């Protein structure tokens, strides 16, 4: 190694020890608001998280930072939906979807469209959900490289198919979502996909297989420790067990789901 290379390494290592360049104050406040919002959202303090994300959006506007504005809008939409403010959750995404100035990247468009598909489905608007999911999927497929949101898009499509009374199509879409999620090591979407496969199997009368698939989903969700998902899994397991003729297991699952529900209510 010659002396220049050695000098370069020394300079680089010296850089590690020295404090990095300080970001401008507004930029630092923007990052801080986003970070605090995320920690509060993860801790379940949705109202606090919403306040942080609203601050972050305002700061992003003052800095003309379109990407930060989009990220915080999407985060705020998630938090608003958790708070039950569905209309606000949709409104906050409108500027990204409209994008009159073409300021937002394809990735942000895709994320906003996926969020709108999810919210439409939650509001039992199947047609709207299918439309938004289709737009997100087209964007996902046209983008170079892997698309991390594909399992979620497929899961939304599978759930829409299930709600529309097409369990066979729902099952095949959810299977693809499960495979893709496994490849991407996305446990959350993997469990969601398995839950949908289980529901589709039950709808097709394959009750024993449904119990088996739903148990797998429950095992993953237990690792993720999300009470709402665990409750959903247990309710589905109760339905599937009852349909399979196992009343004792069905009652057990139902009681466990009820216990989680009560605990969540007490927590509130």
């Amino acid at each position: 190694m010659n002396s220049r290379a050695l000098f370069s390494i020394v300079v680089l290592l010296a850089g590690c020890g020295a404090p990095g360049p300080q970001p401008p104050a507004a930029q630092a406040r923007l990052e801080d608001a986003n970070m605090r919002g995320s920690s509060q959202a993860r801790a379940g303090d949705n109202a606090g998280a919403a306040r942080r994300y609203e601050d972050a959006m305002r700061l992003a506007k003052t800095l003309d930072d379109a990407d930060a504005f989009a990220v915080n809008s999407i985060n705020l939409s998630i938090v608003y939906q958790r708070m039950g403010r569905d209309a606000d959750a949709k409104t906050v995404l409108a500027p990204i979807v409209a994008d009159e100035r073409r300021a937002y990247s394809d990735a942000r468009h895709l994320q906003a469209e996926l969020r709108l598909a999810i919210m439409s489905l939650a509001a039992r608007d199947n047609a709207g959900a299918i439309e938004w999911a289709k737009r997100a999927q087209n964007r996902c497929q046209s983008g170079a490289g892997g698309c991390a949101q594909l399992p979620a898009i497929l899961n939304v499509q599978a759930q829409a198919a299930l709600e529309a009374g097409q369990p066979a199509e729902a099952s095949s879409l959810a299977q693809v979502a499960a495979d893709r999620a496994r490849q991407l090591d996305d446990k959350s979407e993997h469990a969601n996909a398995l839950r949908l496969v289980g529901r589709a199997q039950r709808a097709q009368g394959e009750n024993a297989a449904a119990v088996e698939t739903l148990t797998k989903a429950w095992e993953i969700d237990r690792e993720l420790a999300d009470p709402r998902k665990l409750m959903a899994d247990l309710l589905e397991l109760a339905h599937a067990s009852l349909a399979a003729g196992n009343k004792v297991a069905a009652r057990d699952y139902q009681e466990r789901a009820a216990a989680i529900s009560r605990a969540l209510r007490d927590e509130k």
Partner: protein
Amino acid sequence: MSKPFSPPVRFARLALKVNAFLLIALLLVAAFLGLVAWKQGWFIHQTGINFVTRNSLGINKGMPVKLFGFTIGTVSDMRLAQNGVAVRMSINSAYLERIPRGSRAKFSRESGVVGASVIEIIPGKGEQPIGEDEYMDFEPARGLAEIIDDFRRQAVPAFNEIKQTMSQFNRSGEEVTTAMIALRREIDQIPETHRAVKRLIDSATRTSVSLEHLTGTLDRADFANKLITTLDSLNRTAATAEETMLRIKPAVEIGENAARDAGEIIAAAKRSWPLKEQYRQTEALLPIDSFEAYGISPQKK
């Protein structure tokens, strides 16, 4: 005439007492032997299973044989065979059904490379348990050389990446030198650039004066002449600015190249171990979860 013999009354029935004492002692010894035999497992039925190794170094009589870390027998005998050493293991017959045909014996140590050596049984995929006096395959222990070779195989890609990063640093050093030479050349030209900038400022001042004059005399008859003068002045300003830009351009290009190179180097360094772990992207976006479409009422908090 001697007195007739009369047995001593003090040791009456002595023979009976001695015999009883001896009998109790014998029973105690037998019980002790029985206990020792039981503890040694002499009453447990053992099944002999064999394997042949080309090298019996480290294998001794009495060495424990383990299945899943649990002792199920011992090495009972070793003898020289045609192709190596035939080792016989005495396995507790109760555990034999857990050793199917196709199982392998492996020499290993309790704590990996160091620790007490044992024979480990690795169960095979067969369904029928192995029988008395049957032979199983033996897997010798990995030597230090093999372990080092394995480590080398895994470490080589990492070292190659470090080497690549180093060569990128090296190249960057050369480019920095080139950039420094070009920068020095530009520094030499600074006085001239300074003069050009001064001319530009003078020109701009004149233009400004001309414009003010123009504003004040818009309604005058010689408007056209002054406008021509102003346009000439603006032309000169533009030419000077262009000249200045042409001078600055190489320096800007060099700066751009240097910045791009630095970016590439930092990106390569970030990809390389051990820096990779320090530069994980923190995602500012919350995970978008399709479960939110499920319709379970959210936590309104």
